[in-house]
Each structure stands twice: as structure tokens, then as C-alpha cells.
């Protein structure tokens, strides 16, 4: 029971405590204005270049925008323990680490899902991209799995904050890589072979492909492989993140690598 409470209540509390973007002055530009601007930019660029249709860009960029909270919020909710001087207290607590850190991921997944859905709604209205009402629920499910997978990568990225101070730089890099590699604005078939191969191991690639098909009217059964691949990648990154966190914590006790006072 205490692990469940730590996962649910502890996760939500630490998200509120540490995610310093929870202010309207940061939330609205970052999670609403920025994603819509990104969708418009790529959709108009696509129109001007005569490649792709608006739906391609709306869905690709909307789902990719889940990466912003998923990568940055995860990094901040782990990394800022160090800045606030609470990391030492966290590490000397007997709390089980898996519910402790996974609990922080749960609000981040919800945040990522919300950002992507708002961007999707706004993009479809502004660019007149129809999304069938019948596919909304399936689309939400696919975006949620994509947000989970992104959060997994975010957790692995966040673990590095126990070793390096400026994890935000790395977060920017990760979001940039996803934008270029994951088939957000350029179909995988048009990317160089090695980039398309790397993309298969990144979150969002399979999620975006599935979301495009579902938005076009396909059923969940027909995108099952992509959804499962996205979920599997998310789980893999979560495991990598938890292993890194445990390893860095052990190393910090042995080599005093953390500023914990």
C-alpha cells in the first residue's frame, strides 16, 4: 500500500514540487502557443514545397510535441532535486526507488498527452484537417502510448542528471533528434537508410505512424504492431532509466559523485 501511495500521491506531489514550468507564463507559450506555431510552420513549409498534406504535418507535429513535457519535465523532476538540495534527503530515505521514480513519470505522461491533444485539436481546426469522431478515442490511446514511450526516454535522460549538472542541454538535444529522426515532417522512406534504422529504436516513430493511420480511419487492430512496438520501446527506456538511476545512486555512495548536502 505504501508503495502504491508513493507512486500515486508521491509522484504527483514531486511533480508539483519540482516541475518549475507550472506557471501560466511558461505553460501557455511552451505547451500551447509553441506547438501550434510548429504545426503551422511545417504545414505551410510543406505546402510551399508541394510535399505532404496538412494532415501529415498536423499529426506528426502534434504527437511530437508530447516530447516537450515528457523529456523536459522528467529531467527537471529528477534533476532539480539537486538544485533544491533535497537529493540527499531523497537518497537517505528508505523509499523504494521504482515507485518513487515511476510515480514522477505518471503526471508527465498525462501532461504529454494533454499537450499533444491540444495541439492536434488546434492544428486540425486552424488547417481544416478533419479527424473523424469515431477515431478520437483510438487516437487518444495511440498518443497516450507515444507519451508513455517518450517519458521512458525522458526517464533515461533524467537519470543522467545524477551524473551531469546541465541535463537541460541534453533534453534539447533529445527533442531535436526526435523531431528529425521520428518521421515527424519527413517520411521515414525519404530519410537516409541509417536514419530510418535509428528511428525504429526511438519513441514516437511507431506512435506517429499509427496515429496517422488511425486519424485516416484505420482501426486499432490494423496499427497493433506499431502500437505494441511503441509500448515495448517505452518499457525498454523505462528499464534503462531505472537501471541508470540505481547505478548512479550506488556510484554516488562509493565515489561521492553527488552534491547531496
Amino acid at each position: 500500500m505504501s508503495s502504491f501511495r508513493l507512486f500515486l500521491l508521491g509522484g504527483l506531489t514531486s511533480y508539483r514540487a519540482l516541475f518549475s514550468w507550472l506557471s501560466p507564463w511558461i505553460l501557455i507559450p511552451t505547451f500551447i502557443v509553441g506547438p501550434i506555431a510548429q504545426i503551422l510552420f511545417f504545414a505551410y513549409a510543406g505546402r510551399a514545397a508541394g510535399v505532404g498534406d496538412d494532415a501529415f504535418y498536423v499529426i506528426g507535429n502534434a504527437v511530437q510535441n508530447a516530447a516537450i513535457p515528457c523529456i523536459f519535465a522528467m529531467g527537471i523532476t529528477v534533476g532539480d532535486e539537486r538544485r533544491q538540495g533535497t537529493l540527499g534527503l531523497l537518497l537517505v530515505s528508505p523509499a523504494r526507488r521504482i515507485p518513487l521514480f515511476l510515480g514522477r513519470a505518471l503526471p508527465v505522461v498525462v501532461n504529454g498527452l494533454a499537450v499533444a491533444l491540444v495541439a492536434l485539436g488546434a492544428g486540425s481546426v486552424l488547417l481544416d484537417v478533419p479527424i473523424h469522431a469515431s477515431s478520437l478515442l483510438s487516437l487518444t490511446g495511440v498518443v497516450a502510448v507515444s507519451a508513455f514511450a517518450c517519458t521512458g526516454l525522458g526517464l533515461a535522460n533524467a537519470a543522467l542528471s545524477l551524473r551531469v549538472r546541465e541535463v537541460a542541454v541534453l533534453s534539447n538535444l533529445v527533442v531535436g533528434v526526435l523531431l528529425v529522426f521520428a518521421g515527424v515532417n519527413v517520411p521515414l522512406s525519404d530519410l537516409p537508410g541509417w536514419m530510418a534504422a535509428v528511428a525504429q529504436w526511438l519513441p514516437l516513430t511507431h506512435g506517429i505512424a499509427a496515429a496517422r493511420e488511425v486519424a485516416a480511419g484505420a482501426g486499432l487492430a490494423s496499427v497493433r504492431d506499431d502500437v505494441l512496438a511503441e509500448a515495448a520501446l517505452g518499457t525498454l527506456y523505462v528499464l534503462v532509466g531505472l537501471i541508470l538511476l540505481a547505478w548512479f545512486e550506488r556510484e554516488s555512495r562509493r565515489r561521492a559523485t553527488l552534491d547531496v548536502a
Partner: protein
Amino acid sequence: MRVIDVSDLGRTFRSRSGLRRTEKVVEAVRGISFQVERGELFGLLGPNGAGKTTTIKMLITLLLPTSGRIEVLGHDVVAKPREVRRRVGYVFGGDRGLYERLSGLDNLRYFAELYAVPAREQRARIGELLELVGLTGRERERVEGYSRGMRQRLHIARGLLHRPEVLFLDEPSIGIDPVGARELRQTVKALIEQGTTVLLTTHYMFEADELCDRIAVLAGGRIVAEGTPEQLKQKVSLGSVVEVEVFGLPGGTDERIRALPGVRSLVVEERGPAQVLLVHAEPGSELTQPVLSALDGAQVGRVSTRQPTLEDAYVELVGGA
């Protein structure tokens, strides 16, 4: 019953820097041993860099020793860290270590979850601790608006949430006002009366003198003296201390005083426009007149003779280490 057992404890820090990756080795703690009994208040004193905080970090499982052994409540801190963590509390001084964006209440709730305080007990326990540290009525305010004293009191409440059997206090009164520091000492005394074992580090000698049953003085990573405050005072100097306030100390006077028969040591402190000479006498020596004669020509203010304090003992112990 022994609750802390430290033997031959050592901790070495290694770091590499520069293009040649030159290794720097610092021996922060060098083979120290001490024991703390249940219900005792044990003090670790020492100058900055003496190894106090490193020792506490090893005791609370935050750092692994490079040599030696520590048992807390019968559990080895290396082999059974979780068992130790469940039973000990840790409070450090200063502004950091709290979630600024949360209220005091939410900080306590969160740490209650980290320490698995049962949900049905949390509300009562938090209320009781808020009362104890005098934060009742302010608990719903964000911590970022708290004064340093309020933060420190919240730290104490946080450290006590899970009713630890051993409490580690690392310079808890640093930076808080005299009234807050007095209240903190009262709280610590109350904890001892309730049976909690406390290990305290502090730079304030009067605090250590008032609170500690026993003290270990650390210098350069080693224990240079251990005993009750009274034993430490007697260990270093049985003679009295002559304090002389001087306005404009003539050059060479300190050498003349040090050369006087019966003078054990001399410390000169700058206090505003005056210099205060602290002359430690050998046992049985009467130094007031000889010191005043040596100050011939200088403008002398207040003169007093007193018995040595723990601070005098500390300065001598650490200075001689």
C-alpha cells in the same frame, strides 16, 4: 545499549582534474572510532574540513566508508542501508533541503510518504510535529516565503516524522537567531527525554556544552579528544583564563606575554576597536598582574579572570592537532 558503533572508520576522496587528469587524494576521515549509547546526546565538534559532515554522511548511508565499519542500531550501514534508513532521521542546517514551491504541510506529507508513515497516522503525526516546532497556522504557506528559522523548524519536523530512534543533526542551528536557537535546544532536550539518541555537529560551543553528554573533537580527520564537556575542559587546561581588553596593542607585547612564566597560550581577538587578549594560565599560576605589567603604556579596558570554557578547550585541542 550501544546504538552507534564506529570502528577504524576512514573515507578517502579521489578526484581528477586538468588536462593530465592529475589525481588528487583527500583523506577526509582517518581511522576514527567512537560509540554512542541509547538515549545519549553525542557531539562531534571540529573546524571546517575536520571530517564531521563526511562522518555523518557515512552514518546515514549516503557515503560508503573506504575503510572501517559502522553499525547503527545493530545494522551494518554498508550491508543493510535500508534497515538503517528506516530507523534514523537526518536534519541539516541552512536554507536548502525543502521543496520551495510546496507548502510546509505538503513537504511533510511528501516526506511522510517517503518514510512510509501509515496514511491513518499521517494527519495526527504532522499536526503534532507542527505544534512541536511552532509552525501551526503557517503550514499552508509556501516554503519559499518562510524565514530561515521557520525552515529550520520545518527541517526538524521532517526529520522526526517517522519517529527515528537515532537523529543526526548536522549544524542545525546555523544561521538562526538566538531565540530560534534556544527553542531548537529545548526541542533537542525534549527528544532526549523521550529516549531518542542524537548525534549533533555544531560550531557553537555553548550549544555543545549545554546539550551534549559526550563530545568527540575532530581535527584533520582524526579524533583528538573525547569525553564529557567537563572532562574536555580539564583535559586541556586546569589553569584560569585572563581576559584583557586593550585599545591599540603595542608591537611586541604578545611575544612578551607569551614569554611570561605560567603562560600556557595566548589568543588575540579583534573586537571592534579593541583587541581582547585571552591568556591561558598554567595550573596554579596567577597572571593578572604580570600581564598588566607587560601591557605597560597601552590603554587597558575591562580585565577579568574566569575558568576555562569548552570553547577554550576546543581552541586549544584543535590548535594543537
